[in-house]
């Protein structure tokens, strides 16, 4: 069996994500600076390796690297890690690391198990269209931002519960401040929402240019994308209208469930094959 360079680098990426998730997870319990630094450094290297793996895959198949289920899982994982690195750099939210890197590990691992081929031949003309690339990249990036926003919402609810109940206050030394996680969650949605809007609009533009038939508005992914757009729009509206933060955190939890559905649901209109 011949293993491609891209697959080897992706294997190394998988290992790095596991080590990063384990280091940052252990740091949550043990609070050792060495574990924190290791986790952060490994996350950066993981993202770089992953970028290289995606690039190699691109060169290998001579097309955009998001046609097969395996490729789109890998792309999502990479963007989740990028979103985590941004969150870490801006808010020092290392508590989100085990979630982000653990999720990336699962997604890349899932990519290994997912089909590497699609039923059909990838359509180079379709994939070279900028509207299609923009549609996919913007949508996947928004989902990555929403995944991290989910993590922030979860952390918010945990921290809020501890501070209110006064039980497990020792954990507060390991967890980020309440206001910080709430602000980070909002910022991630504020970033993800326009990206999703861009993804949906570019998808509509492409669909209107023809070739998808008349049924695309009722395609499952299309409908779910609108639902996801609606729920995160609701979140932003609720935030602006000063809903209680606990309630808006629950909106983000529900939002991710819809995001998962959106990503994994099969769709006839989203097959980039001829």
């Amino acid at each position: 069996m011949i293993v491609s360079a891209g697959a080897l680098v992706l294997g190394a990426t998988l290992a790095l994500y596991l080590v990063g998730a384990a280091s940052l997870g252990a740091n949550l319990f043990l609070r050792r600076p060495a574990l924190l630094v290791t986790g952060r450094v490994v996350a950066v290297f993981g993202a770089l390796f992953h970028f290289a793996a995606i690039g190699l895959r691109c060169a290998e198949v001579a097309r955009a690297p998001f046609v097969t289920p395996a490729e789109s899982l890998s792309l999502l994982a990479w963007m989740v890690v990028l979103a985590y690195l941004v969150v870490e750099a801006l808010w020092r939210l290392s508590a989100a690391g085990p979630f982000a890197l653990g999720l990336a590990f699962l997604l890349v691992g899932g990519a290994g198990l997912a089909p590497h081929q699609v039923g059909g031949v990838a359509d180079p003309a379709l994939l070279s269209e900028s509207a299609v690339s923009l549609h996919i990249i913007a949508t996947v990036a928004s989902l990555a931002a929403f995944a991290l926003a989910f993590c922030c919402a979860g952390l918010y609810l945990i921290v809020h519960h501890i501070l209110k109940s006064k039980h497990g206050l020792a954990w507060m030394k390991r967890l980020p401040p309440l206001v910080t996680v709430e602000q980070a969650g909002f910022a991630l949605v504020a970033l993800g929402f326009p990206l999703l809007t861009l993804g949906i609009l570019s998808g509509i533009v492409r669909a209107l240019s023809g070739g998808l038939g008349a049924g695309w508005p009722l395609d499952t992914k299309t409908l779910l994308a609108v639902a996801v757009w609606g729920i995160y729009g609701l979140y932003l509206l609720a935030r602006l209208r000063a809903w209680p933060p606990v309630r808006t955190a629950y909106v983000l939890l529900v939002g991710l469930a819809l995001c998962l559905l959106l990503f994994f649901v099969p769709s006839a209109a989203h097959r980039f094959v001829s």
Partner: protein
Amino acid sequence: MVGLSHQSAPVAVRERLAFTAPGALERALVHLKDALGERECVLLSTCNRTELYVAQGNNVAAGDDPDASTLAPLLARAHGQSDLPELAGYFTERRGHRAVEHLFRVAAGLESMIVGESDIVRQVKTSYAAASDARAAGPLLSRLFHEALRVAKRARTEYDLGKGAFSVGHAAVDMAQSIFGRLGGRVVLLLGAGKMSETTARHLSAAGASSVLVANRTFDKAARLAETLNGRAIRYEAFAPHLAQADIVIASTAAPHAVVTRDLVEGALKGRRHRPLFLIDIAVPRDIEASVGELDDVFLYNIDDLRAVVDNDEAERRIRATRADVLVHDEALSFAQTLRARETALPLVSSLRARMEATKTAEMARLAQRLPHLSPADLRVIEASFGAVIAKIAHEPTVKIKEYALADNGDEKIATARELFGLSSSGGAAAAEEKTP
């Protein structure tokens, strides 16, 4: 080391030998230096301990070690008192590696009344600097204190000995940071101008809280406190509207009933758009109705809650301190061994090198006699060449001798090496010189 501490002496005893008054330490060092002659000394004096570290200088005869019976009265005299024989029972004495380990533990905060407190590091530094300025600390104590500070830093970093709350004020800051993160731009409202609320407000200001409002029944007192905190005094009767703008409220009035009611806070929350409100009630009886804590966005902590945080952190620090014990013990042992190795290895190495130098000098003299036609420049070249040969030959034995000195049976190995090189334990070089024709 001879000294007393909170573990061995009550405060009534400790205060009689404290050198904490301005200039007292410097004056004592002058006195001690005169009395101890060639010996080195460092005097460490804090409110919890007075300890005198003494090291034998190079010119002090072996076996002439002072002990507690001589150093304790010396300390008393350095303090300007008589011998204080009634205090003799409170002194402890530690020698060799036990003294080293004790200093390492003290510097790391492991011997402090509040384990892990950081002030001790500054106090150890100050004590050493004072001794150094007074030329009371020599090379040995200089190495010891630098090493103690290095080990303290390592222990504190690796085991987070300085982390966690040390007081109710610290706990309030920790909780505020758990809610708000950075405290920059946060508004603190003080209800009551008591000592405890002042201390807590100071901690919060030091942590970044930018604005302090002080309300007290006596406005003048509020104004005075506000001035020291760079804040603003407000009328006590008019504090309610300020609740809406405050992020942190510290209540410590002497009122016999709650002054911050649920209705009051509910009213204040209306304009806050769910901005969290951290209420610290350190008054007894309590100033804030307990049911206020049930409101959304309100985090109410009373004195017991904050003490629980302090106690919990203290317990965690003690656990970490037991782990740091091992590190400090190993470091102290290693330092003591290195010191001992230097003591035993260096004389042998210098004897060996002195013998080689003497041999070289004698050989050069003989060469100059036998070959009179050699110019001084030629002789210098030959001498330099001999020197290089000696350095190369002596290198390996020097390394080995230092290794032997660190070994478990170091003394035995050093004795064997002496025998091998034909060097007696004293005056080896001189003997070598005598034997050289």
